């Protein structure tokens, strides 16, 4: 890339990239990423509406907008939605879109498995939400504590929840294995592990976290589902079962899950801060290793969710100390981010504002997190609004603000157009103020004795003021989100043309066009350093100051056959296989008669999986080696390539 060409219009989509069928059959990681992002945005709005209804009900003491039953459904679905259908798929969307670009790769390791992950996620989301029209949505809390979740099938509706989460778990396991294989084996030449962008590192960490934490909740969900439907006795306390088993299985997943939700945002912020500070990330290796440390320690703190369950003071002291320790790597990250901005030239663009606000808000969430490790104090805070405040500072102030930063930062790469900075800054300030209005008072509510998950409260409790403020804040956030949606839709047509590298960025995704071609890079980059793209543009002068190169430099690896870059062909088998899973899901929900449906679903699933493994991967197959010993195979080999994912 000798000169940065003036880009005046956005590429038209490639042929075959239009129409519903092309989206269903796509195996392009970028299009799958966009599917994830749009789905997550849709669920974000739905989950947000649920939150607004909850806040309306709590606006005044003894609110009468919702029944207790409706309230329980809404808070269960709000939590489940925001965790599994918003923050995780938002992160998945970014990872899908960016991972190969950041690594200088043409695609993820298993493109069809990637499509399968998305469609299974989609099916899981549909399953969960169809419960609203099929007899009422789950109402036992997103944490589904047994034996409430197994108590009376007609009364606590957790079957859709169990089947929905099991389905979503399959999607996450598949994509985690896919991402790990991609990161470990698909990097561009020269892209050593310690040259990888921090976002890629965080993806690696969360993939391992998911792989090793999802199985425990999977087992727990099977137990709950079997208890409810087949009469097993995993949580039947009258038969000698122990409800704490569920808590351990759930939180062995649930706590690592917290880091699954926050680490991608940390990765995004670690990419954005250096770009808008014109400085490399301060203490790269410390940021990376503290991320890994958080991942490891994340498996050793789960019982701090159970300080009131009665584990005994010795176990409680142990988990208190491990919980305190996890603050150390978290602090390292925060200090290094501030260090990154220090001495730079800070451009306060919308993505940068979000990234900075992420740090500021996450510090509050982190500090209130430390107060949970003070077990005696936690016995007051636990299951109160203080905890609600804490995790919203982590998951909204942290994860969602970080993901907003990511959207503003990468939207130009994905769409070819900039989001409006003017609208963006309005949205930023409105969201930030609304967020603090909503959740800061909740600290006080919790300490004042307001428990979570209560659909009404008395007027004599002194909760009125802060609840009213929080509800107003919730609507301010909604206004911010509305501006965001307007911005996204308006800018798709009318946004300023972005060009390849609108932010003067550092990583490889900006070295290709916006949006990138299906094969990402015309030629694969040869990587010489961390932030390779930056070093192609800039160098250091004799005193160690930044200096722009007269002419960008950089290595590209010539293609042996530049006319044909083999990309995987579209395939409907992944979506078909996912559809089979969905049919199985509905079948088991309506047993015993549904077993026939489940059997049909299993056949569809096997049809999909078999077709998938028989189908050739690439559109134009590469020439095949002849196999002398197997002459009868030659004909088949000419058209078939077998992949087993």
């Amino acid at each position: 890339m000798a000169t940065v060409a003036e880009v005046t219009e956005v590429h038209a989509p490639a042929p075959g990239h239009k129409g519903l069928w092309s989206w269903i059959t796509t195996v392009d990681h970028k299009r799958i990423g966009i599917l994830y992002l749009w789905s997550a945005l849709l669920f974000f709005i739905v989950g947000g509406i649920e939150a607004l209804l909850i806040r309306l009900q709590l606006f005044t003491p003894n609110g009468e907008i919702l029944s207790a039953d409706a309230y329980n459904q809404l808070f269960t679905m709000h939590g489940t939605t925001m965790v599994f259908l918003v923050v995780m798929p938002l992160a998945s969307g970014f990872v899908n879109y960016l991972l190969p670009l950041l690594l200088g790769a043409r695609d993820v390791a298993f493109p069809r498995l990637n499509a399968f992950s998305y469609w299974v996620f989609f099916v899981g989301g549909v399953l969960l939400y169809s419960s609203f029209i099929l007899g009422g949505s789950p109402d036992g809390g997103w944490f589904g504590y047994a034996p409430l979740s197994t108590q009376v099938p007609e009364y606590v509706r957790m079957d859709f929840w169990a089947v929905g989460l099991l389905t979503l778990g399959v999607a996450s396991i598949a994509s985690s294995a896919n991402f790990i294989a991609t990161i470990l084996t698909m990097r561009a030449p020269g892209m050593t592990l310690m040259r990888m962008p921090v976002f890629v590192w965080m993806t690696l960490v969360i993939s391992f976290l998911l792989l090793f934490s999802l199985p425990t909740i999977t087992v727990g969900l099977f137990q709950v589902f079997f208890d409810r439907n087949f009469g097993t006795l995993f949580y039947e306390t009258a038969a000698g079962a122990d409800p704490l088993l569920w808590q351990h299985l759930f939180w062995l997943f649930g706590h690592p899950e917290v880091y699954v939700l926050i680490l991608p945002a940390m990765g995004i912020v670690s990419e954005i801060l250096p770009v808008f500070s014109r400085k490399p990330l301060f203490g790269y290796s410390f940021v990376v290793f503290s991320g890994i440390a958080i991942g490891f320690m994340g498996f050793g703190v789960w019982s701090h969710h159970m300080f009131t369950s009665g584990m005994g003071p010795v176990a409680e002291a142990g988990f208190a100390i491990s919980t305190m320790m996890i603050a150390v790597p978290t602090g390292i990250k925060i200090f290094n981010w501030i260090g990154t901005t220090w001495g730079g030239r800070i451009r306060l663009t919308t993505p940068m504002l979000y990234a900075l606000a992420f740090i500021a808000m996450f510090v509050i969430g982190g500090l209130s997190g430390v107060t949970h490790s003070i077990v005696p104090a936690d016995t007051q805070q636990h299951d109160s609004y203080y905890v609600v405040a804490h995790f919203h500072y982590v998951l909204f102030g942290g994860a969602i603000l970080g993901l907003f930063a990511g959207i503003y930062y990468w939207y130009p790469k994905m769409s070819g157009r900039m989001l409006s900075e003017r609208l963006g800054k309005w949205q930023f300030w409105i969201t930030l103020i609304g967020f603090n209005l909503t959740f800061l008072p909740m600290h006080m509510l919790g300490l004042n004795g307001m428990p979570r998950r209560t659909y009404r409260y008395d007027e004599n409790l002194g909760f009125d003021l802060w609840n009213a403020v929080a509800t107003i804040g919730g609507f301010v956030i909604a206004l911010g989100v509305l501006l965001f949606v307007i911005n996204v839709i308006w800018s798709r047509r009318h946004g300023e043309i972005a060009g390849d590298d609108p932010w003067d960025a550092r990583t490889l995704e900006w070295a290709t066009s916006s949006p990138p071609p299906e094969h990402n890079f015309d030629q694969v980059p040869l990587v010489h350093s961390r932030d390779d793209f930056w070093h192609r543009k800039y160098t250091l002068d004799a005193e160690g100051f930044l200096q722009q190169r007269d002419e960008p430099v950089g290595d590209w690896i010539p293609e042996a056959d530049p006319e044909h870059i083999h990309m995987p062909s579209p395939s409907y088998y992944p979506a078909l296989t996912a559809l089979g899973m969905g049919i199985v899901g509905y079948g088991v929900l309506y047993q015993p008669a549904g077993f026939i449906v489940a059997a049909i679903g299993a056949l569809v699933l096997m049809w999909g999986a078999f077709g998938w493994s028989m189908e050739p991967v690439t559109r134009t197959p590469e020439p095949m080696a002849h196999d002398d010993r197997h002459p009868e195979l030659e004909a088949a080999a000419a058209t078939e390539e077998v992949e087993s994912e």
Partner: protein
Amino acid sequence: MAARVRSRLVLGAVLATIALAACGTEEVPQNSLDPAGPIARDIDGLWWLVFWIAAVIFVLVQAALLVSIFRFRARKGDEGRRIRQLHGNTKLEVAWTIAPAVLLAVIAVPTVATLFDIRAEPTGDDVLEINVVGHQWWWEYEYPEFGFFTANELHIPAGRPVNLTMTSDDVIHSFWLPRLNGKRDLVPGRVSNLTLFADEPTPDGEFLWGQCAEFCGLAHADMRLKVKVHDEDGFQAWAAGQAQPAVIPTDGPAAEGWEIFKLVCTACHPVAGTEEAQVRLAPDLTHYGSRSWFAGATFRNTTEHLAAWLRNPGDLKPMAPELNDLAADPPRILGMPNFGLGGAEVDALVALLQSWE
């Protein structure tokens, strides 16, 4: 410039809210920051220690961030500013790894010490033992020393420890009385303990407020608890009264009420001193008339409230009595059904219940 002003406004608002939050503790009966006994006071002290440490860290970190933003932000015309490309500083990294670790170690010591203190079961002759069973959605209290049961409204003496031995007979509940102690779960199939210690009696007509803190289904919000703290004499007098059997009225509306009670209520509600009411599936009504609160300590025990409750309990509190199964083992109770009582029947029952003082 505008951005700077706005940021300051935001910062100001945040600080003001924190300041407000830190002091507005009046007339908040469930306030964990307003301890009424030594255990809650220990917890409160620990909380404030950590709060102030956290507050200092908060201010330092936010200040560093803001200083960096204001000092190094891009200004018009400084596009050519020379920027040193610093990759890190190992000494700094070591420092900000060790400093928080040391600070946390300092916090860990009082944390663990207080933890073992508050978890220790009280010993000695002056401990009052109370057994607590959590039900959907009410509390059952048994005073083994005195041999009686009561519900929802807990009475304890001031100035000596009370040991709650707790379990649940359906789902997990959590006993939370913020002004005396942190919360403790009641897990079916397990026994847990919680110590209460109140400094002083509550004034006449006033109670310590608390409620169930673990989501337990439909009426979780209405599973509240009220605690009356007596001086020792008052407590003994109250307990002696509660230990008496109920008096069966022989004439007037209360006697009519007893006839209805025998038909309708004895399937679940026990009343001490009667042969007819011995099934213990719902609150013990022996001295119902002496209570100030009913239905999960959610409603004041007035004639109007009680009459409304008897006409249709579902109007006052969300429950699922259609799923009750008295024949199951163990029986399943998910609330009081609507018995379709007429006005006269309701009045008679109210008269009966309020006569049981």
